[in-house]
């Protein structure tokens, strides 16, 4: 079983492998990175065995390399995913998700009376990494980052 899994990963010639995704977050990440619109080969694996997570998901995208901004978008839903950058079948770089200082247009404010929930506008949150909190730039209300709802 392990061999098969490795074989699948190794099969990517150029592109990105997003690994260590909690199984239930795989399709959220597909949506966040807009991968459903992808025109290059895309492989999604779920319920794969993982020593760390027990069960994990993996996404392999051919010929796609993500910007740091795109990667930081994953921080809210899956802060522990790892990205392997593959060129000519070799892992040339490993990237981790870094939580940005500011989240723009990604998360919904949980305050129904916040202006962002009533106007066609972008949300902005300030991130407090130590406390695991995000604060709405507009109404000032805090919420826990891991409970935040995506837009």
């Amino acid at each position, binding site marked *: 079983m392990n061999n098969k899994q490795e074989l699948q990963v190794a099969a990517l010639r150029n592109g990105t492998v997003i690994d260590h995704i909690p199984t239930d977050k795989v399709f959220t990440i597909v949506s966040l990175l807009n991968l459903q619109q992808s025109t290059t080969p895309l492989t999604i694996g779920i319920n794969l065995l993982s020593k760390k997570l027990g069960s994990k998901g993996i996404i392999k995208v051919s010929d796609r390399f993500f910007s740091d901004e795109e990667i930081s978008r994953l921080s809210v839903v899956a802060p522990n995913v790892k990205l392997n950058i593959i060129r000519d079948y070799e892992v040339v770089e490993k990237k981790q998700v870094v939580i940005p200082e500011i989240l723009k247009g990604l998360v919904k404010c949980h*305050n129904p*009376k*916040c*202006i*962002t929930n*009533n*106007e*066609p*506008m972008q949300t902005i949150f300030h991130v407090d990494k130590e406390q695991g909190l995000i604060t*709405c*730039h*507009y*109404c*000032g*209300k*805090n919420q826990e980052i891991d409970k935040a709802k995506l837009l």
Partner: protein
Amino acid sequence: MDNSSFVTIAHHTKEKIMYLLQMAEEFEKCPNRKLLDGRIVATLFFEPSTRTRLSFETAANRLGAKVIGFADPKVTSGTKGETLKDTIMMVSNYADIIVMRHYLEGAARYASEIAPVPIVNAGDGSNQHPSQTMLDLYSIYKTQGTLENLNIFMVGDLKYGRTVHSLLMAMRHFNPTFHFIAPESLAMPNEYKKFCQQNNLEFTEHTELDKEVISNADILYMTRVQKERFTDLMEYERVKDSFLLNNAMLELTKPNMRILHPLPRVNEIAYDVDDNPKAYYFQQAKNGLYAREAILCDVLGITLDDIKR
């Protein structure tokens, strides 16, 4: 985006606060100064607030400005589905400054980011009401001669009371000792107690208002205990009369002590207090005029030197 807007005073430095208070002091000496002659002030009240609106409009008129705007949200295009952005952009074509009251939190910050003219926040939902805080600070400064090292007692609805939260935050520069007097269900929220701890501000909590408790006060800041804030009406009936101030309760208070209230009051201050020289709430409202003249001038780039000239 316009950085001169007045959206919050939470981030104002001590120097900036003192500077605005000095400006207010100048306006108290002489409120009629034609510093805004030829300018147009728009007052957009998406939520009715007679007191605040009259105060801002009087400030604008005494500075020689013309005032346009609306006091009743029913007459605005918002009811036709117009966005706040569109209303702000439209009014920016006509006015040099927009004074705005809105029922949504964060509306003033957003307006200040999109408007080509400065925005003055006249209250956004339960978020901020910085001009009220300025007039509270001015009232404390004027009655005590300083903002430093005062015993400030806050009474009533400390959970939802926006004015007490803003005042608490603005006072952080001045080493106050706070006393919070409220029914348990309307106690000061933890985030503000945490704020006090982080800023080394001393505070004590009480659940009863009596004359011994307030004997040490320099400022007694009263707020309304509103029936609609209670989820348990039994609790409201139980506590509603416990946070009423009457003249007899002032017996042990210090001579310099003054009673503030953001108004309107309902029954939390008995009418027999009104004649006590320690009652300051009506003068406090008048101070709002000077504080708002200072705010309007400051956001339009008029300095203390310009005022004194």
